């Protein structure tokens, strides 16, 4: 694949897909979408920092599904938590030691943590080795940290191979 | 190609302005100035052409986008509009030349802003659509905001803060008025509105009245009608000389709009809406003139004086607007042209004087002697005569026309005393000003050169003032026709039904 012509192939694909999502499918839109999908990355390429490439797309898909399922599941749990009296809540601030490095993987991890109810990622430590997390209700903080590491960090590490 | 001449006065400055914003041009001062001069000369030529065309062939209309009125935007070049176009472009030429001597280097984008400002003014004069009038008002206002702060400095900032905020409130009121008018008339084309004005009935009548009266506030603000005039003295006194000179036309846009809207749309033919604004306009016009005279007497610097003289001229013009008749309108129109040119002239001269008197600037105090006392003195003398309304410059013709028109309308008892007293006050103060600035001096003159371009700019205005006298016969006849056109209404572009 020509780097000069298609500086960001994944983006191109996503953009084309998005275009087709936005518009009704037709040959015309396919052409127009392709044009835009080539043109826009070409325009914004200077504004993008290089990121760790996705090594295992298949795993990524699985990961996405897992996260979706977790969202569904934990939403209900948290909804119940929210409705309960405040005094029964045990919120806590946790620090998650990070094994993965790289902006993109870390960002994905942080986002995942925030999206799944019950936890919100709050900040990275300055050396980017810790992620501070706020949890709404913690009974066993080590278990929580461990589950995050296993359930999210490990697959991400695999996907990006870092 | 010839049919497009009507829209060219708007497009030409826009094109020139846009070209000047291109970085390659905007960083090349010489190119920018040449472009500006060419555009200005072209604007004058165009305006003359259009004027002759309109005078011979009658009102010219131009449907932008070829949508038939009242649906599309219609530009209407009648005699009134073309005369003001000519005035604007002459002013532009003078200001552009004057500023090219170095004022335009004291900050970026001066030349393009000048062009945009003129585009807005020309557009406001040409448009026959009330919302389009709003748009062009905004164009000329935003350009004037930007020009006002050109060169920087505390006084400019402070003055423009008032100017901008008050005008923004004015724009909001304009939109309220437009909402009401559209909500009652269902149309935006001025001719269409005029045709429908008499048909409005029942309760809608009162709503339409609200709209019309709100427009009085809006235009009164632009025209610096009392009690909406507070922005003017500071803004004019703080503006850079060429900008102040160009601003000489700003108040006249308000007057023009009053004529267009209140003398035409809500004029004689408007049935129950006829002359709604007059009972309000009349006392405010009188007060404007009276307090303008007070302000003139109180002025302590040349630019403040000139600014207050603007208020006086506005007061005089408003009195003419408040008595809509052919003679008053024609007289007002002549006087409008004259006072614009004379005010612009005095502002340019004040700019030169300021540059030569050290810290005394243009205040009426003893100061450093001028480097060019004879030249500037002579110029000042001429400008002062013109402003006071003394012969042989056009001021006296305008004044005499107004006096005589007031007499014809039977309102001389009200109009004559303030009009004559304002001249007297101007005479008193200008003679005081001149003798302070030119004759009371201390210390030694510091050599300052006057750029030929500055003189050229002033020369343009002088020539225009002289031409106004020499061609006064033709011009007064023209203003008479223009007034007749205006008061007869904008019938030519009546729509063929919905």
């Amino acid at each position, binding site marked *: 694949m020509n780097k000069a012509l298609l500086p960001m192939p994944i983006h191109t694909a996503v953009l084309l897909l998005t275009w087709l999502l936005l518009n009704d499918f037709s040959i015309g839109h396919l052409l127009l979408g392709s044009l835009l999908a080539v043109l826009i990355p070409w325009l914004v390429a200077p504004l993008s920092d290089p990121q760790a490439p996705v090594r295992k797309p298949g795993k990524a898909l699985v990961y996405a599904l897992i996260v979706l399922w977790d969202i569904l599941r934990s939403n209900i749990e948290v909804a119940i938590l929210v409705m309960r009296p405040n005094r029964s809540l045990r919120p806590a601030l946790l620090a998650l030691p990070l094994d993965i490095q790289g902006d993109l993987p870390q960002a994905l991890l942080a986002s995942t943590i925030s999206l799944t109810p019950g936890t919100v990622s709050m900040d990275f430590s300055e050396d980017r080795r810790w992620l501070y997390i706020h949890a709404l209700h913690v009974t066993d903080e080590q278990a929580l940290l461990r589950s995050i590491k296993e359930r999210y960090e490990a697959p991400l590490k695999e996907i990006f191979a870092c | 190609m010839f049919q497009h001449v009507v829209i060219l006065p708007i497009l030409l400055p826009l094109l020139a302005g846009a070209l000047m914003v291109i970085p390659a041009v905007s960083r090349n001062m010489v190119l920018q100035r040449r472009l500006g001069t060419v555009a200005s000369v072209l604007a004058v030529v165009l305006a003359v052409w259009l004027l002759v065309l309109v005078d011979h062939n009658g009102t010219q209309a131009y449907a932008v986008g070829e949508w038939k009125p009242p649906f599309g935007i219609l530009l209407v070049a009648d005699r009134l509009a073309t005369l003001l176009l000519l005035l604007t472009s002459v002013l532009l030429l003078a200001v552009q030349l004057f500023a090219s001597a170095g004022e335009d280097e004291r900050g970026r984008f001066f030349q393009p802003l000048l062009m945009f400002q003129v585009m807005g003014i020309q557009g406001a004069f040409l448009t026959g659509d009330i919302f389009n009038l709003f748009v062009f008002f905004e164009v000329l206002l935003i350009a004037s905001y930007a020009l006002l702060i050109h060169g920087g400095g505390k006084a400019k900032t402070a003055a423009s803060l008032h100017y901008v905020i008050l005008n923004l409130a004015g724009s*909001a009121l304009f939109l309220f008025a437009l909402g009401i008018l559209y909500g009652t008339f269902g149309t935006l084309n001025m001719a269409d509105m005029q045709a429908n004005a008499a048909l409005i009935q029942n309760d809608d009548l009162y709503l339409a009245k609200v709209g019309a009266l709100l427009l009085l506030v809006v235009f009164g603000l632009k025209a610096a009608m009392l009690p909406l005039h507070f922005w003017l003295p500071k803004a004019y006194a703080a503006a850079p000389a060429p900008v102040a000179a160009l601003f000489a036309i700003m108040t006249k846009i308000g007057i023009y709009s009053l004529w267009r809207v209140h003398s035409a749309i809500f004029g004689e033919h408007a049935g129950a809406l006829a002359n709604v604004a007059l009972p309000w306009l009349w006392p405010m016009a009188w007060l404007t003139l009276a307090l303008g005279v007070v302000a003139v007497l109180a002025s302590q610097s040349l630019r403040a004086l000139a600014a207050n003289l603007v208020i006086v001229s506005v007061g005089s013009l408003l009195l003419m607007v408040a008595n809509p008749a052919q003679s008053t309108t024609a007289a007002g129109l002549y006087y409008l042209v004259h006072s614009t040119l004379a005010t612009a002239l005095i502002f340019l001269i004040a700019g030169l004087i300021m540059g030569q008197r050290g810290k005394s600037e243009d205040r009426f105090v003893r100061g450093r002697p001028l480097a060019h006392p004879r030249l500037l003195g002579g110029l000042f003398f001429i400008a002062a005569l013109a402003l006071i309304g003394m012969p042989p410059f056009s001021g006296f013709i305008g004044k005499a026309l107004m006096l005589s028109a007031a007499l014809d309308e039977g309102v001389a008892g009200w109009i004559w005393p303030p009009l004559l007293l304002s001249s007297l006050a101007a005479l008193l103060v200008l003679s005081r000003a001149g003798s302070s600035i030119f004759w009371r001096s201390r210390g030694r003159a510091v050599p300052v050169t006057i750029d030929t371009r500055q003189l050229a700019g002033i020369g343009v205005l002088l020539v225009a003032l002289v031409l106004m006298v020499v061609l006064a016969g033709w011009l007064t006849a023209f203003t008479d026709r223009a007034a007749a056109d205006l008061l007869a209404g904008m019938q030519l572009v009546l729509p063929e039904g919905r």
Partner: protein
Amino acid sequence: MEFAYALGVGFLTGAGVFLMLRGRTFPVILGLTLLSYAVNLFLFASGRLTINAAPILGTASEYTDPLPQALVLTAIVIGFAMTAFVLILAMRARADLGNDHVDGHLPPAQLSARAEQRRERREHS
């Protein structure tokens, strides 16, 4: 529903007017912004209120009056440009004049109050 709409417009206008009468630039600009919301809604109202009749041909059987919408759009854009300008102008005024009063200087009463505060602070420290 018309009444609720008019009520909203009236409130916005009144609030805008009140803020525009303040002495500091920031509230004045807030007021201008509120007033321009009010103006936009008002101008929009000149085409009357209609529901589910967006003037996109082929999406409904009746269409609302499209012209005021176009006008409001223009007005919004112009209002934005003006707000931006006046906001920066307010900054500039603060930079040049040293305070954020619309007149470029604090009224005497507030000046003395401020001096009072300063003196008190000095006495405390």
